[in-house]
């Protein structure tokens, strides 16, 4: 692999930029792999990268039915934070945040991680009590999170309207300064490049149509639109389609797939310095490096794989954005899209072994999977390599819906996160 550096840029500038090769290889699939990961998003590509880098398992294929990073990795609002309430969540999201901090150096690929701060607005006494509980829990666990007065919130994010007679008055905010954003495509491409360099096969346009098992129930491989590919271990990391894949192996999982929408505005001059979220009125917004306002809306109420979503959902979010930031009222929206998110009943992810030997599941990241990408991928690789979960992901088991050990972030956040 050619290392990217300022010297490489200078050398190529002198040669007319003719020496840049493809960032990852596109080989023909082998007949057989040690590990197959289904789903070429950030989580799947990252898992392959860490399998090769940290566990020495390089006979790995990542199968992607479309193009890598074309699913939810390319459709989210790129928010990164770790200020969750429960220890199981803090463990994995904080592990992820720590990996974000050095990810560009680790991958030799600029993922544009920008710790610009994530500010969550409090609008009423319930929000205030809930946020302060989060802040206390986070700080006791060594995660930064702090309470701001409305004036401090306004100083941190000047476009914010903190007028007492506003439609959605603000009585404070919780701020995680290490939170921020990253470039979503670069995450997928960086992991793909790193994995491919270590011998992992990245196979695009390869849709899995069946999961085969032997007489003892062990997985033996997958049927695809490019024929049968054998594997001793299979990791499913397919977001909204995870339950469809698990069904192929005869495993029912507590996942519901729903459209989640996002939209971007026309590009504007830099004027929005951080990420702002409001759970109560359901809006989140940041400004990308291209200048577009990146706005996240809610999920639709019904199960769907349509990758669109209802217009009333985004108008509701824009209503809220225009009240919170009156200066955006005349901004034009440029694009809108939907991704299919897989939601669990307790709004916490599932990462663990399944009833099928050799089959591992990483799913249920719902509306907040992007921030978890490095941490989830890192721990999923550990799970696949060792056959048992890492300490930091030990609570995210599939069987918690039977044992009752739920991680109830749904009640903690009272909103999609």
């Amino acid at each position, binding site marked *: 692999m050619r290392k990217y550096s300022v010297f490489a840029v200078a050398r190529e500038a002198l040669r007319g930029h003719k020496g840049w090769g493809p960032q990852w290889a596109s080989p023909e699939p082998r007949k057989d792999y040690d590990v197959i990961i289904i789903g070429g998003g950030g989580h799947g590509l990252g898992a392959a990268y860490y399998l090769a880098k940290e566990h020495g398992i390089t006979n790995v294929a990542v199968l992607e039915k479309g193009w890598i990073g074309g699913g939810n990795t390319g459709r989210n609002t790129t928010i990164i934070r770790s200020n969750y309430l429960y220890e199981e969540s803090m463990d994995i999201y904080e592990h992820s945040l720590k990996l974000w901090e050095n990810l560009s150096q680790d991958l030799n690929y600029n993922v544009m991680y920008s710790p610009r701060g994530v500010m969550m607005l409090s609008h009423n006494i319930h929000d205030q009590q809930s946020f302060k509980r989060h802040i206390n829990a986070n700080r006791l666990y060594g995660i930064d999170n702090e309470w701001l007065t409305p004036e401090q919130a306004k100083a941190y994010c000047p476009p914010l309207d903190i007028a007492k007679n506003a439609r959605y008055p603000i009585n404070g905010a919780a701020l995680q300064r290490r939170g921020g954003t990253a470039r979503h495509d670069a995450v997928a491409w960086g992991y793909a490049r790193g994995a491919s360099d270590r011998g992992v096969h990245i196979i695009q346009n390869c849709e899995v149509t069946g999961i085969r098992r032997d007489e003892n129930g062990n997985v033996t491989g997958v049927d695809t639109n490019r024929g049968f590919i054998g594997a001793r271990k299979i990791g499913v990391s397919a977001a909204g389609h995870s339950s469809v894949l698990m069904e192929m192996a005869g495993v029912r999982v507590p996942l519901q797939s729903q459209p989640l929408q996002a939209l971007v505005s026309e590009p504007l001059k830099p004027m929005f310095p951080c990420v702002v979220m409001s759970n109560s009125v359901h809006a989140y917004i940041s400004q990308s490096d291209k200048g577009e306002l990146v706005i996240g809306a809610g999920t639709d109420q019904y199960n*769907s794989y349509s990758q669109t979503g*209802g217009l009333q959902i985004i108008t509701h979010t824009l209503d809220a954005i225009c009240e919170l930031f009156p200066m955006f009222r005349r901004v034009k929206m440029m694009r809108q899209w939907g991704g299919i998110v897989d939601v669990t009943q307790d709004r916490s992810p599932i990462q663990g072994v399944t009833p099928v030997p050799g089959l591992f599941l990483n799913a249920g990241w719902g509306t907040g999977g992007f921030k978890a990408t490095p941490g989830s991928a890192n721990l999923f690789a550990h799970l696949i390599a060792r056959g048992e979960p890492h300490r930091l992901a030990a609570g995210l088991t599939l069987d918690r819906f039977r044992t009752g050990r739920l991680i109830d972030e749904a009640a903690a956040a009272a909103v999609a996160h």
Partner: protein
Amino acid sequence: MLLIYCPYCEEERSELEFRNAGDAHIVRPTNIAEISDEEFEEFFFLRQNPKGLIFERWRHIHGCGRFFNAARDTVSDRFYTTYKAGEPKPDVAAILKGEQDKGAAR
């Protein structure tokens, strides 16, 4: 936004009047205190999540207030039919065939 036909009001209304209520045809066990953890998980947490035909409950919350069921495609979001609570699952293949025949006759 979806347009949904309420079988009680006998009228097609916008999705804003309705609340989706998840998987249809789930029967609460009568011996709920005695069932095993596996059976409870099955009843309480495991739901259909098909890519294609789904049978689901809706409630006409800003209308008649009643629950009814629907057969819908989760890829196109098209409703095949809606039917009253307590009625059996409709035969979607027959509905599609009926439409085809009507199209051919035209």
